[in-house]
């Protein structure tokens, strides 16, 4: 049974939840979403996403629609067209890419200041991915560099992950489930 199935079970609902998966290219978004899918639907090879891909998978209690957005610079202006539909955001960061941490911050700030996001209490889950890489930054360091403590009007959570092994994803998705639950009742 995949991770999402269990989560949906706890929720006891079978509703559509639109989740936007954002982050720079090569941060591991597609790998993470692939890990969250039921094992029989998981892809073996992950190739760079062009534009975006929509992953839908129903579980016993919840129907997930994940927009896996391409993080390549020329596609990042597509993100904002999906902000309205998104009910939760997963923002993935490559903790080993110190050089581009400023770019990730820039994109996050643009996202938080967008008119479709700014005034909504939309939950944001941060995955500080690739924690297995030597010299990767800790999740604390990542949240410092991205100035996450400045996000005051939205629930957020950060966890260190290794998407290749699937480590740390569970904790994050648990948190997101809780948030969606409180949002809906």
């Amino acid at each position, binding site marked *: 049974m995949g991770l999402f199935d269990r989560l949906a079970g706890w929720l006891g609902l079978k509703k559509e939840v639109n989740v936007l998966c954002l982050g720079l*290219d090569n941060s591991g978004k597609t790998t993470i979403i692939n890990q969250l899918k039921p094992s029989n639907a998981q892809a073996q090879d992950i190739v760079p996403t062009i534009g975006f891909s929509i992953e839908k998978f129903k579980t016993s209690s919840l129907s997930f629609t994940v927009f896996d957005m391409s993080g390549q*610079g020329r596609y990042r202006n597509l993100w904002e067209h999906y902000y309205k539909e998104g009910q939760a955001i997963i923002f993935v960061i490559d903790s080993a890419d110190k*050089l*581009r941490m400023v*770019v990730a911050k*820039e*994109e996050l700030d*643009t996202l938080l200041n967008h008119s479709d996001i700014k005034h909504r209490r939309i939950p944001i889950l941060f995955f500080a991915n690739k924690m297995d890489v030597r*010299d990767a930054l800790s999740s604390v360091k990542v949240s410092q560099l991205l100035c996450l403590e400045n996000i005051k009007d939205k629930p957020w959570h950060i966890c260190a992950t290794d998407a290749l092994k699937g480590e740390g994803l569970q904790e994050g998705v648990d948190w997101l489930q809780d948030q969606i639950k409180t949002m809906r009742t």
Partner: protein
Amino acid sequence: MKLKVYRGTALMSESALLDLPSGLAAFFMDLHEPRVPAVAVASGPCVYVYKNLRPYFKFTLPGLEVNALEQDLWQQAREGQIDPVTLKEMLESIRKKVDVPLSVRSLHFLSLETEDMDDFLQLHKQQPIRRQTVITCIGTLKKSTADDDGVSCLVIGTESCHVYVLDPEAFLILSKMTLPAPPTMMDVTGQFDVEYRITVACRNGNIYVLRRESDKPKYCIELSSHPVGLVRVGKNVVVGCSDESLQSFTQKGKKLWKAVLPAPVTTMASMDLPARGFQAVLLGLANCEVQLYRDKNLLSTIKTPDVVTSICFGRYGREDGTLVMTTRKGGLMVKILKRTATFEDRDSAPGPPLAQSVRLNVPKKTKLYVDQTLRERENGAAMHGAFQMDLSRLRLAAAKAYVKALESSLAPMSASLTEPLKMNAVVQGLGPSFKLTLNVQNTAACRPVMNLAVSFLYDESLYRMRSPYMRIPLLVPGLIYPVETFVECTSDKGVSDIIKVFVLHEGKSSPLLTAHINMPVSEGLTLN
């Protein structure tokens, strides 16, 4: 002396260099997968090529022609036919005839003391004489495709005034070109097999453009001061000059524009963003700034903690718009262009405002206008002469009047250093009684003026004054003091005259200042 390679923010590899490098280039030398670029380091007469961060190949420039006489002399010395002193004398004599310069060995030999000459001769006489040049600059030129990862040739400039294009795989010399002076910098565009331009700045202060078909420069750009940075933007050349200017030329040498810079240029690079169709020039300046120019317009300025000595803009890792800079104290800085950055193209250079080019609705030329223009065209010189003459006269007259005014303190302003005063007069009333107000001001910065008096001079048959002599109170600097008196016109002939006002200092006969008041005609009296 080390070659350091960085990935992201971390140092990836470090290798020691044998000699001081004069240039560095990264290029693809073959089509093997995965595509890993090689690094070429130029130092002395050699290019050291590193592949996969390991030394791979060493290319040495061909030797230069050796003086035949010099060779003969060393031959004889080797065979013992001449002694070191004779060798020295003979070398001295051919050195003066400057056709082919002597080798480094002979020059070294000439600089030795007599007692060291024999040892030197024994040590070196068996080796043949060689004359080597050194590399001054290095660049790369795509071989046959313009692809980003296409194979490139190395282009090297040498102290012997040559430019060589090297084959990337076998390092054969594909092309050799000759310049009038040693090259110092170059910019290479195009593809070797198709068409290319090598723009070279030389030590004689000129820029030459080399092309595919010719082994000599096709165009020459003569500069008024030495080039310190060189970048080609499209078909034009942008040069940073040592006179703190940025200049642009067509490749045929026509000057397009010049921008004045706030500090001397330390380095220059082009900033190309093909995806956005953006092309500009980056300049490192000695005042710890990096400036971005599109044409002659300054788009942006970056302040840096230290003077930037080299700049490279392009793709670094996954970011297309990365600016990498090194600083004089050995720092390495990386900046990434914001995805949302826009560059405002405002013409910041001082010059005519945009509104000036708006066409005005000018009326048709009249016959009078045309006649005048013709007259001006025909007698231009004479008219100018006459005008200049009148102008000079006018200036002379004005100067004379001014001198006179100064000499006799006739002006309503006092030029005296101890009593700088200013006065103006106001006449009020219709007559026969007028009110005369004199506004006196002490224009000194802080010193008050004391012991002043006002006196009037007038035609007593026309006017009567209540108090033709008045004392002025102490004048505090800056304040305006109105001094009032009344004048009565005694004539009924409807005439008016001038009343002269003098401001005097007690005990001095010449006035500090003078004002002439043109009295109005007394209307009141005529009514009577």
